[in-house]
């Protein structure tokens, strides 16, 4: 395989500036002329590229809750160096998605309505609540990094005091809305193509976001370690890669079993637009990276990991875009291709995200060894243990 070792995009600044400017102009056009004149959306195809982008942004930001859960809830402390990049990725990802959602709404001036007008039967209502709450949780998780930089330490104590319930709440909210993006489509069994529609959509969305989130953070740790030291030792990177492989296998088994059970595999026996799209996402995003990641040499090599995790992310993007666009082109039979303005807004927002990421990385201690932060929960080495525990373990130690 001839992949150039971690290619660097040159002239990033002019490219990003152009994209952001073009996106801003496109957004102005969207607000001035309305959705009809500027997008290719229609009554038959009311959701398009932007919804797909939302799925993508949220899914790739899943590292925010998986890594936090692993390090802070499951105490896998050795992964501490990637907690901050993960939180930053999630924070920026969610901000971008909120931005796109507001652009996508027909009445952006009404975006606050879900706060006061509830409908508990609506998946969309649940998602908007989860998004709002989780973005707040992420802001609180991210705030200490900013406050630390400006040496304002007193709020950090408060945030650390509530950090445990906050993190648990964040993980739960993520579990809910990552899967709920799949639930959105449960109500269109007649519209979504059988290769994507299944009652298991929420479960599949959740499983795949775990893989894509971890892949994204591995990818970042590889890209940003080029300067000098590695963010994670090879052994830990390989461990994460193993986790990804297990998740990919789980996803593949659940998805294929479900296709067989529902009889939808018949769609795969003929070569159609839909079956090709399905094969593309499954091969690129799941089968090939799994094949790569089960090989120990690939897990231990930077180039191999780079290729495999990039494939997971691309395949994940295909999966979400297929669910949001391709699968819905089957009924009523139609084609949708985003307009230039839709594309420019999406590219502009993506560029904004990358620029924000590199800006924050430059000015805040994200990829640096963890500086001494005020910690409420210090591991109490000399704490007095309970008597029961002491005698039992003391005895064990003596006997061994």
């Amino acid at each position, binding site marked *: 395989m001839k992949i150039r070792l971690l290619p660097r995009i040159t002239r990033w600044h002019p490219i990003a500036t152009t994209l952001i400017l073009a996106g801003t102009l496109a957004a102005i056009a969207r607000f001035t*002329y*309305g*959705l*009809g*004149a500027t997008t290719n959306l229609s*009554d038959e195809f*009311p*959701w398009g590229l932007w919804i797909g982008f939302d799925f993508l942004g949220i899914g790739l930001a899943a590292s925010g809750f998986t890594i936090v*859960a692993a390090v*802070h*809830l*499951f*105490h896998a*402390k050795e992964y501490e160096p990637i907690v901050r990049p993960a939180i930053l990725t999630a924070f920026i990802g969610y901000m971008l998605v909120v931005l796109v959602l507001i652009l*996508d*709404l*027909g*009445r952006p001036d*009404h975006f606050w*309505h*879900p706060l006061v*007008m*509830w*409908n*508990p*039967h*609506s*998946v*969309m209502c*649940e998602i908007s609540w989860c998004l709002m709450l989780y973005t707040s949780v992420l802001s609180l998780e991210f705030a200490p990094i900013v406050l630390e930089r400006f040496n304002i330490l007193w709020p950090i104590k408060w945030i650390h005091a509530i950090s*445990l319930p906050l993190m*648990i*709440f964040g*993980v*739960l909210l993520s*579990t*809910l809305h990552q899967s*709920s993006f799949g*639930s*959105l489509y*449960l*109500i*269109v*069994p*007649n*519209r979504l193509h059988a290769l994507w529609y299944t*009652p298991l959509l*929420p479960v599949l969305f959740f499983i795949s976001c775990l893989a894509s989130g971890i892949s994204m953070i591995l990818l970042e740790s590889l890209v940003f370690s080029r300067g000098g030291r590695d963010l994670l030792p090879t052994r830990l990177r390989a461990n994460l890669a193993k986790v990804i492989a297990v998740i990919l296998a789980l996803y593949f088994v659940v998805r294929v079993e479900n296709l067989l059970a529902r009889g939808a595999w018949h769609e795969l026996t003929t070569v159609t637009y839909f079956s090709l799209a399905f094969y593309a996402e499954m091969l690129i995003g799941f089968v090939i990276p799994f094949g790569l990641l089960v090989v120990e040499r690939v897990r231990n090599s930077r180039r191999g990991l780079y290729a495999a995790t990039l494939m997971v992310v691309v395949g994940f993007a295909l999966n979400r875009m297929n669910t949001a666009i391709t699968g819905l082109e089957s009924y*009523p039979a139609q084609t949708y291709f985003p307009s230039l303005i839709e594309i420019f807004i999406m590219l502009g927002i993506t560029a904004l995200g990358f620029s924000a990421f590199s800006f924050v990385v430059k000015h805040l201690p994200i990829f640096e060894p963890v500086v001494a932060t005020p910690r409420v929960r210090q*591991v*109490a*080495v*000399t*704490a007095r*243990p309970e008597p029961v*525990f*002491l005698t039992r*373990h*003391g005895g064990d*130690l003596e006997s061994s």
Partner: protein
Amino acid sequence: MLIDLTLCVGCNVCQGACKEENQLPPGEEKYLSLTAYTALSKYNDLYIRRMCQHCDVPTCVSVCPVAALSKADAGPVAYDGEKCIGCRYCLQACPYHVPKYEWSSTKPRIQKCKFCAPRLAKGLQPACAEACPTGATIFGERDELLLEAARRVSAEPTKYVPRIYGKDDVGGTSMLYLSPVPFEQLGFDARLGKIPMPMLTMSALSKVPNVLSVGGVMLGGIWWITNRRTEVAAFEASEQKGETPRPEDKP
């Protein structure tokens, strides 16, 4: 309303009356649009009138995040443009592709048949039912219309297919149809079952409280166990080094 396709002659008076009632620009339209809340489409020699089905368990009402759509006891599914945020989930989810969106507006709303709610409130019939010259559309209580439809089918079983469309399709609709040919030949989606569509998402949404409570306890428990394990490991390590002798060891 009961719509008997065998009686419809395709005169389009219903659409005219609807447009007049809703102050829409006149002119014959073949498909539902922003300016046609009802439309006749032709299948061979049959005309079928489309409009909002005003479902008993409406999909659009269930998906709307801000409850801009609501189902009244009297039947109409009403829309409040002041609440609407424009997420267009109703357009995506409606099994009958009914809501139409004001795409060209910068403050867009959806448009669809209102079941002439203001007229119903005054004790009048919907404009289309009142205008229908052949009795193809009749208005009444749903129970009575179902009895009437069943009576017609059993009186002339050769004339009708033995099915009242809307009796329990997607959980039942306010619009009931009788047809001489199978409904699938008239552009009705054969894949819609009898279960109300909102049940499909409710099966997922109903698990939300469980995920929150069970998940919360489980994560808290895992944190406690792994935290304890770290503490124990740290204590044992310190003990092995002999850095911190147990207080009890001291005489």
